[in-house]
Structure formats: C-alpha cells, structure tokens
C-alpha cells in the first residue's frame, strides 16, 4: 500500500511538472494584441496512423495559416493534437471531451457519428455556431450532393466533408501468379472469389481471403465486410425507413463468411484478435494474404511505400484491385453487378470553442483548393470533397481514378441516423458468431432479436 501511495505521489509530481512545463510553453507564445490559440485534432499521428495527414497539418497547414493570419494583423497560434488509436477509441475520447465542455477547436469525426453527436448537442449547425460564413463557404458549390449529405443531419449542415472513399477487393498479384490466377482478375460473382481462394490455398498461401469479421475490428467489419456483402446480396441495413432483419440477403452474406472461415479459406483467429486488423495489414504486406477487402485507405495509408503503416515498396507492381461483385451478376443492390460502400470523414468546429469564427477559418483553410492540392501531392492522393481539385489530382493516380470513375457510381452510404452505430455493432456480433461456427440462419435470427431492442420494437423492422 505504501509503495502504491508513493508511486501515485511520484506520478502526481511528474504530472504537475509536466503541466508547469506546458504552461511555460504556451505562455511564451503570447505577444501584443489579442493572442488567439486554436487546437486541431485528427486521429492521425506522425510516424503512425495516418502519418501523411498529421505531417500535412503540422508542417504545412499550421505555419501557412499562422502566417496568413499574421498578414491580416491577427496573432493566432495553432496546435495539433495527435492521436493514433482505433476509431472506436478516438470516438470515445472525443465524446468524453465534448461532454465535459472541452476538446479541440477543430476536429475530425467520422461521417457516421454526425447523427448521434448532433442529437447529444456535441456538435451544432455551422450557421448557428459560426454565422453566415459557413453557408457562404465557396467550397460548397464544388462538392457533390451525396458527399454534402454526409455532413447534414435533419437538413442542417454540421460540418464540412473532408472527402469520400470506396471499397474494393485488393489482391496480391505475385501470389495470384503462383496460383495460376490472372493479374487482371475481376470476379463476377461470389463463387469466383471462393474459387480463387481455393486455388490460392492449394498454392500454399497461408491466408487466401481476408474479409473483416467479428467485434474486435469494430466498424471496419461493417464497412469492409458485412455491408458490402449485404449490398452484393441485394440488401441494405435500412431500406425505405425500415431496418432489415433476418432477411435472405443477410443470410446470404453471412453464408459467404461461413464458406470462407468454415472452409479454411480465411483465418478465423485473426478476426478475434484485439489487433487483428493491423495484423491483417502486416500479413498482406508480407505476402501472406491473397485477397483482402478494404477501402482506398488501404492503398493510401497502409501499403503506401512512403509512409504506410505496413509499407510495400513494390505496391504499384504487386497490389491489384478489383470491384466487389454482387452475389451473382445483377443480384446486387438496385440490380447492380458490382457494389461498394462509401463513407468519409467530416471536419467541424467544436461548439465549446472560444473562437468559433477563427476556428472556421482554419477549418475552411484546410479544405481550400491550395491546401487539398498540397495535402495530396507526392503520392498522397485521395478523393477530396471538391470536384475542381479531384479533376486535377486524380489524373495521375490509377487506383483513385478507378475508385472515382467505377466504384463511386455504384456505391452506397450508411443510414445517417443516430442509432446506426448500435445496429452496426449488432451486425458485427452476427459475423463473429458465424466465424465462430454458428449457422448463418441462427446468427441472422439472433441479430433480428437484438435489432428489435435497439430500434424500438419489431414495428420498425422489415423481415
């Protein structure tokens, strides 16, 4: 007990010293006139998760913005608050910050959190918070309707969209060659994925197919797993105002999981591991995974030869990509042959900010054409929210061009309602059950039962 107390004491002293130092650091920045301090946060950190984004903010946005403000006679200092954790943990941290009336002035959130954050009062419509500048922002005219929609809740704009993305099947061309599969592989139905997996397996590939499942991967299981499969079977998690229960489409989607993980074509243990998703990235980069379903983030942030978390020096030669097929041609959502899912981050102003106008200026600055071009140069291309910028930057980037030309036209979005994350968690549990050996029908029925509790009764569910 004594040791425990003493160590607590030591920690307290260290913490106090740290605070003292921090205080010194920030006070030295002050000067004449009204000094304004802004903070900006993303789930990004130099040398780790989304390193390119963190580097861009710290090394370009902050100095440029401070200089621009200085030219206007304003003394503004900006600090970046990095973070490099799973998205769910980042969300918890943000919610707790906002609940206690704190948090960074400008913050990135996942588009799908907008509903629940807005209902909780954690974010406010920009026009209320900032004023008419928000609605008059010159970028709006450049942003497509579907992307604008992600930033809206109840018809009001709560944030500026940071971009959008799409999901594809990545595959390792070197392993495909070993297994006698073509380098321009494009499956037309699920059976072709299974067939390719079987060939990869007999060619000795340790993990032929990786399609995220289980609860440990969180929303990654929904976005890069069960939702694209559901769309491929012609279903949607919510259709015409009603939630989808134990539908045939869901049973089909879960059935594919069963074929992959019950048939030895995937690694069921990997889906359970606390760091399973990171490990699947690592294994893909090491040439142990044949086919992997992921968003364009995988190409940009994971196997990126420059600053990915699992770099692949030969990415451009070895990594192939294909569209996600429907179960059978024409059986997908809206009768499509191919499907995808899209989401995207939002950037907004914290209602607790003391300087909402300056914070919005910073926010708009990060999404100005110059900033977006700077952010996406040197191989960091992503689909930005602005069509004017996309036209210029996507030209030299094969995957992103592929996403914006072929994938985005067939994509689907998650329902923008506050209760969605809970529904998504229930879907993840259903995949976990199937990977663990539960028959798909039984898992689908259990999902429907859980769904009834979440969305307020069977009346809101179409079966």
């Amino acid at each position, binding site marked *: 007990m004594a040791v425990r107390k003493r160590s607590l004491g030591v920690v307290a002293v260290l913490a106090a010293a740290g605070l003292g130092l921090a205080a010194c650091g920030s006070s030295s920045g002050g000067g004449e006139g009204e000094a304004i301090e802004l903070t900006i946060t993303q789930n990004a950190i130099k040398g780790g998760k989304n390193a390119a984004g963190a580097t861009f903010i710290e090394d370009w946005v902050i100095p440029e913005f401070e200089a621009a403000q200085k030219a206007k006679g304003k003394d503004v200092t900006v600090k970046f608050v990095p973070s490099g954790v799973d998205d*769910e943990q980042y969300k918890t941290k943000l919610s707790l910050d906002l609940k206690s009336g704190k948090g960074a002035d400008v913050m990135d959130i996942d588009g799908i959190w907008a509903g*629940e954050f807005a209902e909780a009062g954690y974010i406010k419509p920009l026009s209320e918070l900032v004023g008419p500048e928000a609605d008059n922002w010159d970028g709006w005219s450049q942003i497509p309707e579907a992307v604008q929609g992600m930033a809206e809740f109840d018809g009001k704009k709560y944030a500026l969209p940071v971009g959008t993305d799409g999901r594809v099947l990545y595959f390792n061309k070197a392993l495909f060659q070993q297994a006698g599969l073509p380098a321009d592989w494009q499956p037309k139905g699920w059976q072709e994925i299974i067939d390719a997996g079987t060939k990869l397996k007999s060619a000795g590939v340790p993990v032929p197919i990786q399609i995220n499942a289980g*609860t440990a991967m969180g929303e990654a299981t929904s976005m890069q797993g069960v939702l694209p499969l559901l769309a491929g079977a012609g279903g949607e998690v919510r259709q015409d105002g009603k939630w989808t229960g134990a539908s045939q489409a869901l049973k089909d989607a879960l059935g594919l999981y069963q074929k992959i993980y019950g048939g030895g074509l995937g690694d069921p*243990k990997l889906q*359970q*591991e606390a760091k399973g998703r990171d490990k699947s990235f690592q294994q893909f980069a090491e040439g142990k995974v044949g086919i992997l379903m992921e968003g364009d983030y995988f190409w940009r942030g994971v196997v990126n030869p420059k600053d990915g978390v699992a770099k692949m020096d030969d990415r451009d030669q070895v990594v192939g990509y294909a569209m996600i097929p429907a179960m059978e041609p024409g059986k997908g959502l809206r009768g499509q042959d191919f499907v995808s899912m899209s989401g995207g981050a939002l950037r907004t102003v914290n209602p607790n900010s003391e300087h909402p106008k300056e914070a919005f200026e910073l926010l708009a600055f990060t999404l100005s054409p110059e900033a977006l071009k700077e952010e996406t140069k040197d191989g960091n291309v992503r689909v930005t929210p602005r069509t004017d910028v996309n036209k210029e930057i996507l030209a030299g980037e094969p995957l992103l061009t592929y996403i914006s030309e072929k994938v985005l036209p067939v994509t689907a979005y998650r329902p923008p309602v506050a209760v969605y994350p809970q529904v998504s968690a229930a879907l993840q549990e259903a995949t*976990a059950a199937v990977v663990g050996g539960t028959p798909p029908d039984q898992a689908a029925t259990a999902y429907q039962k859980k769904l009834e509790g979440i969305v307020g009764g069977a009346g809101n569910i179409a079966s």
Partner: protein
Amino acid sequence: MAQATSPPEVVKEDERTRRGYSSDAAGLGNLRAGAFVAPALLLIAAFLVFPALWVLYLGLTNYRLTGAAAAEPQFVGLANLLDAVSNPTFWNSTWLTLQFVLGSAVIGQVVLGFSIAWMLRDRAGPLKRLVEGLVILAWILPSAVVSFLWVALLDRDGGTLNALLGIPGFPWLLDHPMLSIIVFNTWRGTAFSMMLYGAALGNVPPSHLESARLAGASGWQQLRDVVFPHIRGHILTNLLLISLWTFNDFSPFLITAGGPDGRSEVLAVHVYKVALQSGELGYGAAVSTIILLINLVVAVFYLRLLRSKK
C-alpha cells in the same frame, strides 16, 4: 421542562457531560474536534460518497455517451438493473470475474506470495534481495508497459513464449484467454502478498517454532499449528485487499481487450465496454452498482471472519 430542572435530572446531565469530557482525550470539545475532521470528511464526501450516489442515480436513467439520451436522459427506474440480471453477458462476466479472483488472487498470489516469503524467511544476502527485487519490480512497473511485454510474450505469431517452446502459431490469448490473464495477474500482484507475509512471519515467536521442532513436528505441522494461527489476521486482511483489488482490476483489458468474443470480459472490462465503447452510461452505472454490492458482500464476509477470531 419542569422535570428537567428537578435535582435527579441535573445529576444525570452532569454525569453525561463528565463522561463526555473523559472520552475527549485531546480536550477539544465536539465542535473543535468536528472542525479538525471536517476536511477529511469533505474529501471523502466529494470523492467517494458523492460519486457512489451519482452512480446509483445514473443507474436509474437511460443516460448515454452520445445521441439524444446524452442531452436529456430519462428516468427509467430499475429497468437497467433488470436488464443486467437477465443478460447472459453480465452473468458470463460475473462468472469470469469469480474465476479471475479465485485463480489469480486467492490461489495464485496468496500461495505464491506465501511460499516465497516462507522460503526466504531465514535467508539474507543477494539471493533474497534478487528474488524480492524481481517480484516487487513486477508489481511497481506501470500497467501499460507490463501489458505490452505480456502481449509480446504471448503473441501468436512473434511471441517469445512460442519461440521458446518451439510451437509457433499457438494462440495463447485466443485459446486460453482466462488462463493467460490469471497467470499474468498472479505474476503481477504476488509482491504485495509476499511482503505482507514476510512481515507477518517475522512476528511468529521463534521459541514457538523451536519447541514445535523439538516436539518432532514436521514442516507442514509447524506451518499448520504454529505459523497459521499466528498470522490468521494477516491472511484474512491480505485476502480481503487482494480480492477487492483483483475484482476491480482493469489491466486484463490491456492484454486481451475482453476478447475473443467476450471470453475474458471480467466485470471491470464489461463496464468499460458497455459504458464507454457502446456509450450506454446508464446501463454501465447499473452494473457498477451491482459490482459495488458484490464488493460490500465480500468485504463484510472477510471482516466477519476477522472478528470471529476475537
């Protein structure tokens, strides 16, 4: 009033005040004594009683971390508590917690801690210092550091243990999550028991052990008939403390994150998952209330045992 002024009453009052002063050794009087205790009581009220009551209250609402219920929580009565006791996940967590406490605290730490203390009781010199140093090191290192080391040790693909045993790919944390965290917590917390028993054994009069030995008592008989009766109070106090600590311990989360699929989701992790990850603060508070009650029951049980000695 008339009675109060009558002589017998006056005598009684005198007696009472005299008795009062006699128990007031410092001579402060109730008011000044109260003033001295007030800061401590205020701290306890602010940091212990108020949060506990607040948890009780939150447990009766549908308060959430996000969404509409975060802005305007509704009073839902006992619904959360009823949900919890009818939820198999909750009972699963309770059962896992019981295994965790019995396995790692009551059996692991006590037996290992006592064994080390007993074996080192008459020794001095570098060996004793080395063993004690290592055991205490496991206890004082920060949880985050230690958990990282254990994940590196038990990892399926690049883990040290698998490399040593020559069984690459054996998923300890996935196939034996409870065993993993029980062994971890035994290793982690043995130091406290070891030090407590080390001190307690110093209080066993050597003459008693000597006479037992002269009477021909075996090692086990010495332990049972001489040592244990002397340190019974220490054992119970130790059990009380480590049971409660282990019951509320969160570090298993850093190793298995409650997984796979909830198979190592002890109650502390369960509360974190429902309250902060799923955002159901009201339900989480209701589960915390139940944990509070279980803690009270455990504490009362041990304190009863302790008193029955006297």
